[in-house]
C-alpha cells in the first residue's frame, strides 16, 4: 500500500504536469487565436462558454472543427445548447431588455435571424476580431454597420431528389416538382424559406421585382400546393427521405448530404431557375460579463481560422469565408459548394435587409397558401 505522502506527491506531480501542458497548449492556441500580445492581460477564464447550435451533423461538425480545438487551446469547456434558433431569440431579447445575463455566450444563427437581433441592438460589435482580416467579403453582413454578426459560411437550398424516382434523369427545373407522380412525395420548409425566390423565377417573374411584386412566386407556390407537399424543418427532410415518405425536397444541401451519408440513395441539383444562396453566422448577445465577452470573442475568432473552418465545414459540406479551403472530396465541382464566379451565377442572393423587412409577410403568405 502506498503511503499517503506518496499518493499526494504523485497527485501533485500529475496535476503539475497537466497544468504545464495546459499552459503550453493555451499559449500555443492563443497565439493562433491572435491574442498572444494580450496574454499578459488575459481576463479570467470562465469554466465554460455556451454556444447555441443546431443538432445532428450540424453540432457534430461544430464540435469537431471549432469547439474541441478551442477547449484544447484555452482549457475552457464548450457547452452546446440545442435550443432552436427561433426559440432562443426571444429569450435573448428578453434578457437584454431586462438587463439580465443572456442564456448563451454565442449564437450560431441564420444571417437573416441574426440581422433582426442586430437591428434590435442586442448584438456585440465584433469588428475587432483579428482573424477578420483573413476572411472574404462573405464574412461581412450586408447593410449593417461594423460586424454585429460574422458570417461563417454560405449554403444553397438545392433540389434534392431520389434518383430512382426520376428514371429519365435528374430534374432540371423546379417545375419538375409539378409532375403528377410526385403528388404527396415532395417537401418544403414549413415557412417556405429557400423556395420563395426560385418560385418567383419558376412562376415567370423576375428577381428584380422582389419584394414589390411576388405574385409569380405565390402563383407557382399555389400550384405546388396542389401536389400536397410535406412541410417541415431540417431534421424532417433527412427522416422523410430515410423513411421513404418523399422523393424530392427543397432543402439545404447539408441535410441531403447527411441522408446520403446514412446510406440513402440521394442526389441534388441547382435547377435552371437557380437556387437560393444564403449565409449563417455567429454573434454574441449584449449583457455578458467582460471576461466572458472576451472569451466568447476568442471563440468566434478561432472559428475564423483556416484550420477550424476546414474541419467544421468539411462536416457540413459548405463553403467557408477563409480563402484556400479544400472542398470535401464528394463535393468537388458540386453546385451546392460554390467557389467560382461561374458557380455563383446560378445562385440567387437577396440582401439580408430586404429579407428581414419582408420575411414575416412572405412566411404569412406561404402559410396562407399551404394551410388553405
Amino acid at each position, binding site marked *: 500500500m502506498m503511503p499517503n505522502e506518496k499518493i499526494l506527491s504523485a497527485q501533485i506531480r500529475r496535476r503539475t504536469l497537466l497544468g504545464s501542458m495546459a499552459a503550453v497548449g493555451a499559449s500555443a492556441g492563443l497565439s493562433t487565436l491572435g491574442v498572444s500580445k494580450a496574454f499578459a492581460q488575459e481576463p479570467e477564464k470562465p469554466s465554460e462558454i455556451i454556444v447555441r447550435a443546431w443538432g445532428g451533423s450540424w453540432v457534430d461538425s461544430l464540435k469537431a472543427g471549432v469547439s474541441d480545438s478551442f477547449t484544447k487551446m484555452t482549457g475552457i469547456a464548450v457547452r452546446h445548447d440545442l435550443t*432552436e434558433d*427561433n*426559440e432562443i*431569440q*426571444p429569450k435573448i431579447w428578453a434578457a437584454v431588455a431586462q438587463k439580465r445575463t443572456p442564456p448563451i455566450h454565442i449564437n450560431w444563427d441564420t444571417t437573416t435571424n441574426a440581422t*433582426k*437581433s442586430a*437591428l*434590435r*441592438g442586442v448584438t456585440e460589435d465584433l469588428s475587432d476580431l483579428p482573424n477578420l482580416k483573413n476572411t472574404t467579403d462573405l464574412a461581412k453582413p450586408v447593410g449593417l454597420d461594423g460586424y454585429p454578426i460574422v458570417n461563417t459560411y454560405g449554403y444553397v437550398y438545392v433540389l434534392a431528389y431520389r434518383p430512382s424516382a426520376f428514371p429519365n434523369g435528374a430534374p432540371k427545373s423546379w417545375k419538375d416538382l409539378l409532375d403528377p407522380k410526385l403528388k*404527396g412525395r415532395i417537401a418544403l420548409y*414549413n*415557412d417556405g424559406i429557400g423556395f420563395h425566390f426560385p418560385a418567383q423565377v419558376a412562376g415567370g417573374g423576375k428577381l428584380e421585382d422582389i419584394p414589390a411584386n411576388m405574385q409569380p412566386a405565390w402563383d407557382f407556390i399555389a400550384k405546388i400546393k396542389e401536389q*400536397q*407537399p*410535406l*412541410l*417541415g424543418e431540417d431534421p424532417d427532410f433527412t427522416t422523410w427521405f430515410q*423513411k*421513404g*415518405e418523399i422523393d424530392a425536397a427543397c432543402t439545404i444541401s447539408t441535410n441531403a448530404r447527411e441522408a446520403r451519408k446514412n446510406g440513402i440513395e440521394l442526389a441534388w441539383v441547382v435547377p435552371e431557375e437557380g437556387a437560393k444562396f444564403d449565409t449563417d453566422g455567429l454573434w454574441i448577445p449584449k449583457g455578458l460579463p467582460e471576461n466572458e465577452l472576451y472569451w466568447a470573442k476568442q471563440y468566434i475568432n478561432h472559428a475564423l481560422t483556416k484550420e477550424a473552418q476546414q474541419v467544421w465545414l468539411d462536416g457540413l459540406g459548405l463553403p467557408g469565408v477563409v480563402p484556400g479551403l479544400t472542398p470535401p472530396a464528394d463535393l468537388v465541382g458540386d453546385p451546392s459548394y460554390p467557389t467560382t464566379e461561374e458557380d455563383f451565377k446560378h445562385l440567387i442572393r437577396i440582401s439580408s435587409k430586404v429579407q*428581414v*423587412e419582408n*420575411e*414575416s409577410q412572405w*412566411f*404569412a403568405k406561404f*402559410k*396562407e397558401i*399551404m*394551410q*388553405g
Partner: protein
Amino acid sequence: MRHSRVAYPLTWRVMDVFERLAAAVWPSSFQRGLPYLMLLPAVVLVGLLVLGLIQIGDSSLRTLDTSTFMMSENYTLANYQRALSEKFFATVAGRSLMGAVIVTVITLIFAFPYAYLMVRTPSSALRKFLLVALFLPFFIGQVVRAYGWLIILGNQGMVNEALGLVGVPPMRLLYNYPAVLFGLVQYMLPFAVLMLAPALTAIPAELESAASSLGAGWVRTFRHIVLPLARPGLVGAGLVVVTLSLTDFAIPAILGGGSQDFIANAIYDQFFRTSDQGLGATLSLLLVAVGSILVGVVFMLFGAGTLAMGDERK
C-alpha cells in the same frame, strides 16, 4: 411536585409550548379565516396568470416595427384587425374548432363503453387491466406517443407493411387532417374515461336492474336510465376534451405534416418564427376568448356536469 413532573411528561410540555405558539400566531378567533388561508396559494397562482394575461393584452395592442424589431410605443388595434380579417387565421381557427368538436364527439363515444365496463365489471382482473391500460399512456408523453404513430402509420410503418402482405400498395396514412384527429382522440381518451368513471359509479346498479325487471331492454335502459344520469360525466369529460383539443400544439405539428396547423401552431409561429409578439399575443387572447365562450355556452345549455359542485350539479 416531583410526582406531577413524572405524570406530565416532557413531550406533552413541548406540545403545550407549540400549542401556545400556535394560539399566539393564529388565535381561535381567526379560525373562520382558515379556509381562505388555504385558498391563498391558488389565488396567488391565478393572480399570476391574470398578470400574465394583462401583459399579453398590452403586447396585443402593439405592432412590430421591422426596421428595429421593437414593439411600437403607441397602442393600436391593428393586430386584432389582421387576426380577424386575414383568411389564414380564419382557416386555422375553423380547423381547430371543427377538430375540437369532432374529437370530443368521437372520444366520448369511445370513452363511454370503456368507462362503463371498467365501473360495472364484476371481474376485478378485468377492472385492473382496464385501469392499467388507462393509466399507461399518462406515463408516455404526448410527443412520444405522436412519434409512435409516425412509426406505426408511416409509409414503411407496421400498418402499411401489413397491408403490403395482402397486396395493397403503401398509402399515405399520415400528414393529413384525419391523422391529426386520430392522434388527438387517442391522446384524449384517458382524460375522458377518467372524467366519466365517477359519474357512472354514482349511478346505482339497482336502477338498471329495476328497469330490466320492468321489461326494459338494454337499449331502453341505456337511453332512459344510464345516459341521463351520466350526463354530468359526459359534460365534464366533453369540456375537458374540447378545451384541450382546441389548444393542442404537438399533435397537429407532428401528425399534420406542416399543413394542418391549429391555432396554437399559428401562435407559435408569430412568437418564434416571425418575432411578432404583438400578433402572437392577439391570437392567444382570441383563443382564450373563443375557448371561454365555448365553455360558457356548454355551461348554459347543459350545466357544468361533474365540474360543478353542490346543489348546482344536476
